[in-house]
């Protein structure tokens, strides 16, 4: 009788951890979506065989350690300025694939101006935006994307929109700018969503190859530590609350959708 042990052979391998992730154990909290997105980016870079031509930018926040895990040339940017670095890199090396990997505080608070103007200029790079509605690295403070009544260390009684404003829908904002060619919102908490996110990342790299303009991928993600929940509770809470404010799906795709699948 053939048992599962007989199947574990190289020729039967259908999925393994991409070698473009370094051997270092990912430092993210258990169940955090950052790890998944790191993996998906490196899988796409591996599949497109563009490790030699891809440069990533990690700003400040939980994403700051990305260059410990992604085996590509990377730069660490000041908080909020990743899209400025990417602007220079993509203009100076138009044939390279440049992406930023930013959290909501980085991209939608301190980096708002850089985000909007890079998109408005249609800079040819990819913005990967992890929206978990909180500042994770610094211990769970409120972010512009924190949803109403959400408790954080700086909205301990829940975000009061009368005093602290409403969740900033930056993705909807940049979708209005002619410079963006592809704007989509995904998540990585279920296998189906992971497949869609990977597809979105692959699309973005293809659009960059064709110099179609700025690609903006928001990944609504969890923050088990910041939200004070277990990963599974966080994913459930995310579905029931975050997705109401940040509905998943494509907001904008290039008009002549002729990207080879």
């Amino acid at each position, binding site marked *: 009788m053939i048992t599962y042990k007989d199947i574990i052979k190289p020729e039967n391998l259908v999925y393994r951890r991409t070698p473009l992730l370094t051997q270092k154990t990912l430092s993210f909290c258990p169940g955090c979506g950052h790890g998944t997105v790191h993996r998906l980016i490196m899988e796409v870079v591996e599949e497109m065989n563009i*490790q*030699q*031509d*891809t*440069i990533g*930018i990690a700003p400040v926040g939980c994403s*700051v350690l990305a*260059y410990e895990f*992604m*085996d*590509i*040339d*990377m*730069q*660490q*940017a*000041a908080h909020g*300025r990743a899209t*400025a*670095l*990417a*602007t*220079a*890199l993509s*203009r*100076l*090396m138009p044939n*390279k694939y440049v992406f930023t990997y930013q959290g909501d505080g980085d991209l939608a608070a301190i980096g708002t*101006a*850089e985000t*909007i*103007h890079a998109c408005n200029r249609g800079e040819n790079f990819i913005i990967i935006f992890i929206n978990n509605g909180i500042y994770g690295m610094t211990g769970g403070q409120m972010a512009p994307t924190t949803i109403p009544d959400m408790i954080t260390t700086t909205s301990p009684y829940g975000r009061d929109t009368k005093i602290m404003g409403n969740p900033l829908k930056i993705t909807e904002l940049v979708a209005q700018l002619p410079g963006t060619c592809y704007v989509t919102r995904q998540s990585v908490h279920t296998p189906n969503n992971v497949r869609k996110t990977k597809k979105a990342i692959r699309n973005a790299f293809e659009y960059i190859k064709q110099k179609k303009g700025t690609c903006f991928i928001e990944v609504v993600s969890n923050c088990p530590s910041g939200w004070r929940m277990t990963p599974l509770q966080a994913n459930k809470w995310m579905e029931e609350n975050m997705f109401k404010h940040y509905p998943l799906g494509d907001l904008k795709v290039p008009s002549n959708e002729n990207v080879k699948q």
Partner: protein
Amino acid sequence: MSEVKLMKGNEAFAEALIRAGTDAYFGYPITPQSEVVEYLMSQKPYETTGMVVLQCESEVAAINMCYGGAGAGFKVATSSSSPGISLKQEGISYLAGAELPALILNVARGGPGLGTIQPAQSDYFQATKGGGHGDYRLFVLAPSSVQEMADFVPLAFDVAFKYRNPAMILSDGIIGQMMEKVTLFEPIPRRSLEQIEKECPWATTGKKPNRERNIITSLDLDPISQEKHVMKLKEKYEKMQAELRYEEINTDDAEYLIVAYGSSARICHKVVSIARKQGLKVGLLRPITLFPFPYKRINELANKVKHILVTELSLGQMVEDVKLAVEGKVPVYFYGRTGGAIYTPVEILEYLKTKL
């Protein structure tokens, strides 16, 4: 072919960027230096040398674009004036921390705050003592002519790349706005990506199979290795003393010494000549590099002059370094105008005479 032209300091700087093989310039409008980005946009070097020229959404974006380009080994530059340079300080600290070469021009104006658009030298501390956070210094050149606004560009780039450290040209509204004859140096071609990768093996141009990935960062959470990194910067700044430059006028027989830089040095040329005509043996030492600073030479001159007068268009900032250099051997006096007001040579001479 080198050319002789009548140009504004700001334009000479911009033309020098093109001729120095600069890869990218990131600017933002602010008086009194908007001509730099205007000139570059009018020359369209992106059609000739391929140089990137971009007007950014802010000075903060501009300095961070420099960081991105510098991290890939490119020759990058930005310019602004005092308030804009304050906005760039975090980015400049990052450039120094990540050991990245970049050229920053400050066409200084009166401060603090919005201040004025008139020229001043009140950014000396910011430029030479590390205006941003952390232990770092900039290589700082102080032009006092339109010619130097052009010639200091390739020099600043050479030193920046030699030491992998940002370099600043600290000019002011006088030097930036005035027009003078300038001999423009022969153009240097931009480096190819292969050249960049050879000269800057640390650059993030895409991980080649034959090397580890390159990471440009100034982050190190481990205090011991971060301290080691900062000590490495310290060594760099000690080595940078070799780049010291200054000029001396009539100091051989000087009984009184003036120390002044940039536009103040120009004004003091006249002070020296008027004084000499009146039989007063006055000499001038003009620091050309503000970091490294000519401490040793000033200390030597202090042995043979009765006193030293420092003149700055500020409340007095470089004067502190001169006092450090002199070590109390002779009195160090200060005469300054600030807020955009400018002294005349006669005014300075009158003050000097009250100290005889």
